Structures are given as C-alpha cells and as structure tokens.
C-alpha cells in the first residue's frame, strides 16, 4: 500500500474543494477583515493611541490574521469531514486500505492549507492599513502553522461527534468565537482587572495570538516559549485522541 499516494489524493481533494468554492471560503474573510481594519483600526484605533509602543492598528493586525487562521482551518475540516459523513462517502475511505493516520493527516492538511491561505489573504489586506516589520518572521510562520494544525484537529473531532449540521456550528459560535475575541486580539491583558488577567491566561488562544504578535511586532503579553510548548502539547493530545476515535470508528462506524 502506497500511503503517500493516498495522502496526496485526500489532501488534493480537500484543497480542490475549498478552492472550487472560493467565493464562500476565501472572499468573505477578505471583506470582513477589511471592515475590522477600517472600523477598529482606522476609525476607533486613532483615538486609542499606542499599546506597548506601537499603533493600535499595528497591534490588532496579528490578532485578526490569526483569528482568521483559527476560524478557517477549523471550519474547513469540520464542514468537509461532516459532509463526508453525511453523504456517506467516508465509506470510500473506510473500505479502502488507507491507514487511519493518513485519513487524519489528509484532512488536517486541507485545513492547514485553507487556514494559511486565508491568513495570507488577510495579511495582504492588512498591508493596505499598516506596516508589518515582522522581526521574527520564522516564529510567526511557525505559530500560524501550529495554530492551523491545532484548530484543524479540533474541527476534525467536532465533525466526528457531530450528528447534525447544528452540531458543527455550536462549537465555532459558542466556544471558538468567544475565546478568540477574549484571546487578546483587540487588547493587551494588562488592560484587564487582575482577576480577568488570571482567567485570560487559561485561554490557549491568548498564547498563540501573542506569540504571533511577537513574531510580527516584537510585542507579547506571554512567554513565547511557553506558548509554543502549550500549542504543541495540545496538538499531540488532539492528534492521539483523533486517532483513537478513528481506530474505534466513533461516529463513522456502526
């Protein structure tokens, strides 16, 4: 069995899918984030002043880019894998000799590709509003990659457990969006009262956003090494859990 060919087939299929429907997958984030930059960055941001020595517009750019990466990597895998379940074409994979890790990696690669492509689109839009110095570009790219991986895995697990299309929107609406908005995208945790600062530190997205911001703007509320360890740790745990679900056939086999 040539797993590389099977992996390539799944990953290409996933990438073709979101590229084919680009008006639904790539265009909306460009418009939404342009509005964020215009309203929060340009109109309101000019009254906020500077944070950690940089303009408010520059401060929010990394967070908005990473928020797009998070939501689109998650959305890609959760919608694609759930549709595969819903249409029963998951059976094409279950019948064939594709190892579980190849199925998982193929879908995750699709999620990473869409997350990073949307991140690139948002970055290009942001260049119309702010200058990005990117003093630690490699770190920023690593964080974007790890974040896309982590949320692709989370989307996969959501899809495995989902029994209806409602189930694939509950987590993004009621967990992901609040965590993203409270993850220091628009503010520094230093602005918060002590108790909320402590609570915010339990939000993993805060670590990713700040480390990404450090990569692009040299500014962070958290220890970047700790952030990388936390993100990697989550990836390992969710990968093992996803493989266990596939092995047991949870949600996909009788």
């Amino acid at each position, binding site marked *: 069995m040539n797993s590389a060919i099977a992996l390539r087939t799944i990953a290409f299929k996933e990438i073709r899918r979101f590229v084919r429907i680009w008006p639904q997958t790539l265009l909306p984030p460009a418009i939404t984030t342009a509005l964020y930059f215009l309203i929060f960055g340009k109109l309101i941001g000019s009254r906020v002043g500077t944070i950690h020595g940089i303009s408010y517009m520059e401060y929010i750019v990394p967070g908005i880019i990473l928020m797009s990466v998070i939501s689109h990597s998650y959305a890609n895998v959760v919608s694609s894998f759930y549709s595969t379940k819903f*249409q029963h074409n998951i059976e094409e994979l279950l019948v064939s000799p594709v*190892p579980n890790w190849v199925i998982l990696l193929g879908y995750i690669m699709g999620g990473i590709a869409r997350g990073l492509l949307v991140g690139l689109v948002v970055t290009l839009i942001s260049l119309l509003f702010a200058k990005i110095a990117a003093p630690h570009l490699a770190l920023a790219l690593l964080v974007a990659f790890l974040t896309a991986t982590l949320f692709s895995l989370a989307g996969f697990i959501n899809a495995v457990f989902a029994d209806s299309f409602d189930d694939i929107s509950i987590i993004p609406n009621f967990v992901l969006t609040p965590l993203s908005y409270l993850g220091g995208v628009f503010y520094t945790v230093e602005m918060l009262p002590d108790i909320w600062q402590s609570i915010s530190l339990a939000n993993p997205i805060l670590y990713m956003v700040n480390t990404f911001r450090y990569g692009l703007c040299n500014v962070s509320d958290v220890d970047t090494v700790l952030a990388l360890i936390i993100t990697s740790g989550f990836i390992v745990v969710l990968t093992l859990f996803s493989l266990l679900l596939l092995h047991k056939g949870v949600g996909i086999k009788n």
Partner: protein
Amino acid sequence: MNALSLRNLRKTYNNGFEALKGIDLDVKAGDFFALLGANGAGKSTTIGIISSLVNETSGTVSVFGHDLRKENQQAKRCIGLVPQEVNFNQFETVRNIVLNQAGYYGMSSKEAKISTEHCLKQMQLWDKRDTVSRRLSGGMKRRVMIARALVHSPKLLILDEPTAGVDIEIRRLMWEMIREVNQNGTTIILTTHYLEEAENLCRNIAIIHQGLIVENSDMATLLGRIHVNHFLLDLANPLQVAPQLEGCVCELVEEKVLSVSVPKQTSLNQLFEKLSALNIEVVSLKNKSNRLEQLFMDIVQ
C-alpha cells in the same frame, strides 16, 4: 481457495439487537454467490463487517486467506464494494470519483487514469466522465459505484442490491456487465431482493434469516427441491367455479384466470390434457412466482 471465510461471526448493536448470531460461510474463488435474506435478516450487517464499515462483536473474517483484523490492508485490497445507497460525493465529477478511489488504493496517477478509463468504458459511462455526479440518472449512479469498486481490480466484488430501483432495461444491461466481470475471474457476492436476479446470475446461494444462515447450497440443488410448480392460466372462456383436477390444486383468481399448483412429476402436457378433457381452453400461461421466491418463502416462514 476460499475468496471469503466467515467463522462464528456475531454482531450485537449498542441497543442490544443481535443482528448476527454466529454465522459460518465460505465462498469459493471465482464464484458468483447470492446472499439472500429479508430486511433486517442480517445480510447488510454481514456485508458491513466484511467491508470494514461495521465492527463485529466477535468472530473472524478472512478474505483470500488474509485475516481482516490481522492483515487488514491485504484483505481490504482484495475487496470492492458496491453499497446499497449512493455514497459518493454528489458534487464531484464521475471521473474524479473513480480516480480518487484509485488514489486511496495507492495506484499511481498513470495506472489510475488507465484503469479509470477502462472501468468507465466497461460501465458505458465514458461519455459522462466530466458530468457532475448529482446530474446522473439512478441507473448511471449505480454504474458509477460499480466502476469505482472495480478501479483497483479487486478479487472479490460485493454487490449490495446493485439494481434496486433501476428499470428492467438497465437492470438487464447491468446483469451482462456484472456477468462479464465474473467471467474475467472476479468473485462476486450479490445481495438482492429480486430473486429472479439471483436465480439468473448466481451459482451458489446462502439464505440468512434472523441472524443465522438457514440455507447454504448450490442453486441447482436448491431449485431441485421444489416439489410443486405454481402457474397462472389465462382462460379463453369464463368459469364460475374452479375445476377439480386430479393431483392438482386449482383456485379461481378471476373468472378467466385460474391458479394451478402442479406436482413437479406432472408434465405440462398432462395438465393440458386434463384441462382439455373439461373443455377448458388456455390462452396463455405464466409462473405464479419466481421459483427461488417460492423456496425462499418456504425457508424463512
């Protein structure tokens, strides 16, 4: 060599329903085998386990000598499945559906393209290769699933009610296609509700009932067990009461339609002689039901 061996296969679903109660089954390589059963008898569960869509509770499945658990990839490589329900991506083109399946089996791009073209031509779908699959007719969708199942040249093809819901013309066309696949050396296991289909195509047969194999023999032996033939006769003139024919059971269905149950040892000539003696003129005759259908009902009732 056995293409398939099931040993003490059991399946109990989470709700406690015992779908399979320990079945043993052997299908020889090259065979055209019918697996029959009423709805809920356990045939879809059996096929689900063989094709890795359902986890068995206990027992073993061996495909061309490869244990499905211990040599999972080798066993799966031997199997092609045509499921009961359409299960491909309805937004994908016909060609991509088959090409993707080839990719899942690790076929190189060149091999996949050649085999895809061959299978689509074999199923008379080559001119539809760039059509988005949801635009196909029901019969074409079923043929896409057969092409997809054949793309990696499986040694064992499982057809789960492949002709359900297709018109008789397409059904007969599909029979020819499937027969050709079997003649080329592929072992076929067929489940169907059209018992005429099983009788026409299959050499061996198993009947599953309430989770157990209740019959397993070759078709000729099984059909040889029929002791009575049932006919419907269209009469030239109306009758008021059913005639009394020695050794036969007659029942008047309508004024000009007579149902007759005839012992196997009684020839049609003898029957017509008896009818002629009573001045009953027969215009046409047909089997009241398919022969296998009679047996099937006898076995499962």
